[in-house]
């Protein structure tokens, strides 16, 4: 029998015979279930135990599907029956598991029509557990092996299986939950489908109202979000471009320092900036007091609302725009500009006719990222919003507020999703398939043209004032944690740090007595678990996208990149809607947080991988294949080692994003698994700024350390000194 088939048969049968089929309330890894009535307890039993007791009879066909692959024994791959058996077993088993999962739920039949047809069921079932996961995986890989045996992708089992795996998880953890939003939006609170209810909620004045145009009442959240997102997208793109130009095309000596400084906000939870804006411009902010004392200006609440959110988001997202822009600006081959100059174009002409048009994809990407981040941002509007309602906070209050209206949250999330998907689509349309990459891999040794004079001074001015502002903001963050009460009592104190991070050394050993430790360790462990998973899924996807051709590849690419355009808030809501009930029950677990991060951050891993892999000559893989290695071996021994820089990028980025994320997390945390960011937001809501700021400072330093650790762990890529210096392909030159 084929070894891979055998392997998955073993896995499948372990799932049926040994592991509990259903999810275990007290946690699988606690292993308490082993001594607590296993295997015949209804909560812990493996499939066969349920069936022996005459319960959950609908599980009976599953072992039968798992018997089928034994028939492949003795058959060779090219035998048509071999692939047919595997596909029937795999696809049949998988579909059966999914269907039974959806029609039998915690209250018996999920659909009243079935109840009418078959009578009441009298039994119920919970979410799928480890047994079900193993069996489903086995079925999935039987299917892919069957498809590969029919000759798909040159019969490559590893590649077909990878594609199948990614399609399955992206389907389960992105498309399925997001589709739940649509469904919920169309249901009333009793779960009955009703277009009327949808329309009523959709046309609510709170969403589309235009009162702000002619009265002092605020406009609808949709308009506010849209206006804010466009403004933030445009300003961050412009600032990002300015910094990229200073970093690459000015003779400025300390541009490296400038560059490092602009990275800082990336390792900062976004709302921290909102916090320090309050410390500066709030009612008791330093600037407010300063202007009050010196010029006698009455303190106002001007910063709460659009201006405050706008400044905070600009500070938070300009660095990302900068990173996108610098890839593109550096990626423009100097010989292009030199060619223009030899064709009699002066610096200004060169810049406007060659450099700037070549930056188009960077501009589009930077705008899109700023737009989506702003739309999704939850922390800053919460901290600084005042009466300026935006969609993301409205969604939150719809769920946790007094209203507890999931339908309304779904409708709002739907509107938000429509905005971001439209932007995503428009960007792809605008860029088209045209290639703007001018990196050739051949070191052409030129240097970038310097900025034309009439641009230089304006750009310097903007860059330096902005940098100065950033420094002030970070000083606020650093000092804010060490004063008693901001604005009132500026005496130096350690008390916030002690409240949050004290430890006690008693007879029983070390005791983590600080209030922040719980959420701190949860955050660290969840980020540590999800970072390598994100990198793995992302790089595998990138490998398939860059190196393999198969029918439906365009769709595959679109699907994997789509989650980038889905705001965290929407993901958060959709995960609650989708994973609160069987067949996949995850709310309140750590797993839901890990999954959320993996799929939120996957596009980052994909893009890092795609950019790096496009630089690896395909003949390296092919050489390995013709030398007899299969594609799995090639992936491990040739592709991965050469992708070290991309691995680091993916690891660092997903770790950092897991530590700083708030928009999706706020919906998914539970008492047991609280994350640092949601804990901090909680402190802010109680006006406990000192502790919040102290905690943030610690997080920033932890992330800084983590970046260095990852760098050390993965190591340098070993290659000789005469390796031609290849410029990094702009990660963003392709449409996202």
């Amino acid at each position, binding site marked *: 029998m084929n070894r891979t088939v055998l392997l998955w048969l073993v896995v499948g049968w372990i799932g049926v015979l040994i592991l509990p089929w259903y999810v275990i309330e007290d946690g699988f890894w606690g292993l308490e279930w082993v001594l607590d009535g296993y295997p015949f307890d209804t909560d812990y039993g493996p499939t066969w135990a349920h069936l022996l007791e005459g319960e959950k009879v609908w599980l009976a066909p599953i072992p039968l599907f798992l018997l089928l692959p034994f028939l492949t024994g003795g058959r060779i791959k090219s035998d048509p029956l071999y692939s047919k058996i595997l596909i029937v077993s795999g696809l049949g088993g998988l579909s059966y598991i999914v269907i039974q999962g959806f029609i039998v739920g915690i209250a018996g039949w999920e659909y009243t029509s079935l109840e009418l047809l078959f009578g009441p069921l009298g039994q119920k079932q919970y979410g799928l557990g480890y047994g079900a996961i193993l069996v489903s995986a086995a079925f999935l890989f039987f299917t892919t092996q069957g498809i590969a045996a029919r000759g798909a992708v*040159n019969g490559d089992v590893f590649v077909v299986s990878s594609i199948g795996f990614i399609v399955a998880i992206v389907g389960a953890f992105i498309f399925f939950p997001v589709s739940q939003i649509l469904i919920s939006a169309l249901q009333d609170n009793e779960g009955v489908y009703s277009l009327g209810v949808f329309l009523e909620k959709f046309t609510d004045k709170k969403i589309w109202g235009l009162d702000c145009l002619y009265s002092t009442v605020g406009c609808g959240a949709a308009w506010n979000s849209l206006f804010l997102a466009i403004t933030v997208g445009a300003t961050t793109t412009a600032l990002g471009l300015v910094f990229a130009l200073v970093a690459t095309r000015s003779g400025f000596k300390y541009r490296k320092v400038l560059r490092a400084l602009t990275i800082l906000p990336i390792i900062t939870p976004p709302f921290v900036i909102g916090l320090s804006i309050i410390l500066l411009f709030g009612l008791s902010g330093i600037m407010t007091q300063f202007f009050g004392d010196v010029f006698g200006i009455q303190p106002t609440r001007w910063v709460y609302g659009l201006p405050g959110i706008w400044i905070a988001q600009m500070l938070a997202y300009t660095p990302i725009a900068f990173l996108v822009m610098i890839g593109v600006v550096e990626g423009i081959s100097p010989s292009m500009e030199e060619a223009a100059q030899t064709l009699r174009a002066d610096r200004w002409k060169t810049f406007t006719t060659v450099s700037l048009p070549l930056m188009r994809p960077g501009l589009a990407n930077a705008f899109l990222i700023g737009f989506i981040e702003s739309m999704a941002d939850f922390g800053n509007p919460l901290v600084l919003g005042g009466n300026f309602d935006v969609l993301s906070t409205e969604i939150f209050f719809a769920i946790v507020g007094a209203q507890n209206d999931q339908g309304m949250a779904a409708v709002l999330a739907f509107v938000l999703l429509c905005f971001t998907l439209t932007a995503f689509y428009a960007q792809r349309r605008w860029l088209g398939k045209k290639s703007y990459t001018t990196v050739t891999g051949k070191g052409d040794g030129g240097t970038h043209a310097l900025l034309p004079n009439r641009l230089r001074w304006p750009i310097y001015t903007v860059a330096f004032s902005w940098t100065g502002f950033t420094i002030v903001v970070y000083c606020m963050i650093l000092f804010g944690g060490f004063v008693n009460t901001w604005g009132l009592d500026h005496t130096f104190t350690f008390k916030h740090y002690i409240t949050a991070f004290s430890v006690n050394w008693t007879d029983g050993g070390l005791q983590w007595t600080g209030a922040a430790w719980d959420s701190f360790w949860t955050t660290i462990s969840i980020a540590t678990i999800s970072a390598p998973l994100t990198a793995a899924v992302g790089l595998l996807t990138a490998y398939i996208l860059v190196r393999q051709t198969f029918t439906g590849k365009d769709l595959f690419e679109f699907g994997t990149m789509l989650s980038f355009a889905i705001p965290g808030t929407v993901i958060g809501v959709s995960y609650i809607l989708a994973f609160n009930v069987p067949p996949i029950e995850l709310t309140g677990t750590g797993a839901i947080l890990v999954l959320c991060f993996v799929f939120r951050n996957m596009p980052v891993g994909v893009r890092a991988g795609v950019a790096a892999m496009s630089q690896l000559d395909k*003949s390296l893989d092919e050489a390995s294949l*013709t*030398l*007899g290695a299969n594609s799995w071996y090639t992936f491990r021994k040739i592709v991965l080692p050469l992708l070290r820089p991309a691995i680091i990028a993916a690891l660092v980025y997903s770790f950092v994003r897991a530590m700083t994320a708030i928009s999706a997390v706020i919906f998914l945390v539970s008492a047991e698994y609280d994350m640092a960011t949601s804990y901090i937001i909680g402190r802010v809501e109680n006006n406990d700024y000192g502790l919040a700021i102290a905690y943030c400072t610690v997080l920033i330093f932890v992330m800084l350390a983590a970046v260095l650790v990852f760098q050390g762990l993965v190591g340098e890529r*070993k290659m*000789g000194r*005469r390796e031609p210096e290849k410029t990094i392909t702009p990660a963003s030159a392709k449409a996202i």
Partner: protein
Amino acid sequence: MGIKSKAASVTFDHVTKIYGEHVTAVDDVSFVVEAGKLVTLLGPSGCGKTTTLRMIAGLEMANTGRVLIGDQDVTILPATDRDVSMVFQSYALFPHMTVGENVAYGLNVSGMAKDEAKSRAEDGLKLVGLSGYGARLPSELSGGQQQRVAVARALVLEPQVLLFDEPLSNLDAKLRRQVREEIRDIQKNLGLTAVYVTHDQEEALAVSDRIIVMNNAVIAQEGTPRDLYEKPADLFVADFIGDANLVDVQIKSVSGELAEVEMASLQLSLPHRGLKSGAAHAAIRPESFLVSTDQSSEGISGTIGKAVYLGNHMEYLITTDLGDLFVVASDVVNTISPQTGVKVTLASHGVTLVGN
């Protein structure tokens, strides 16, 4: 312990490869490469040589037709499972592995013990004259040395078929000549079956047992180097191999092996090669012209358009009634200057009738 050969033949049986929906890269091609021979695929860029080679390697799959290696039908067998190795144009040496690790890679993959793989790799390196270089990284070698590492890496697997895709195109002219001799020697000594892709006709003539000339996704002609040079099957082959001059002629009559041919004012007797009376073409090698400045002698009148001195020979462009002729003359002492009137006649060899 040395490197042995398990040479096997390669058979293409009505193979077609279509990329996407419209690009037919290889169109109904059939040929056989006998075991132990070096066969070259020659043709202009884009004619389908690389695609053909990659189908032998298993890196592309034929849309229709069959591919056989030895007696085994490998049409749908992926590269991994074929006993074929390939030397890439870019060498494709793994930059993160040493030269030794590169050469031993295929051996390790096939599950050979580490020590044995290492000593075999050393044998392979010795064969290409690089013993002692095992510990270096590929980037620490010159282009020619990298090329030879790529050959060694392919050789040590003792493949049934060895493939080369323009292996010399990244080398300078002098090195190219040297390395191609080395490749040919190794192939002959070990009795390997090799398929060699190039667009350089001189290279093809120098190394091949047989040449397959491709044009526009089909085979234009196949044969020994001599066959192709002396008996081109059509205008394309005549033109592509040896820069022949193609001129219009009239076949007056055919008798026995020979045809009576009228070429401008000249009357010639040439092997008819199956052609009938009527309009035809003749392919004339540049070195088959005799040029005389004596206006009163026999021949086709012409005027020297260009004269280029190339050290060991002269190249002339001569304008005649037959059109512009490209002529190579070995006399570099008495050169003829442009605008001189000349008479052109033909030597006894290097003139061939060609159909359309």
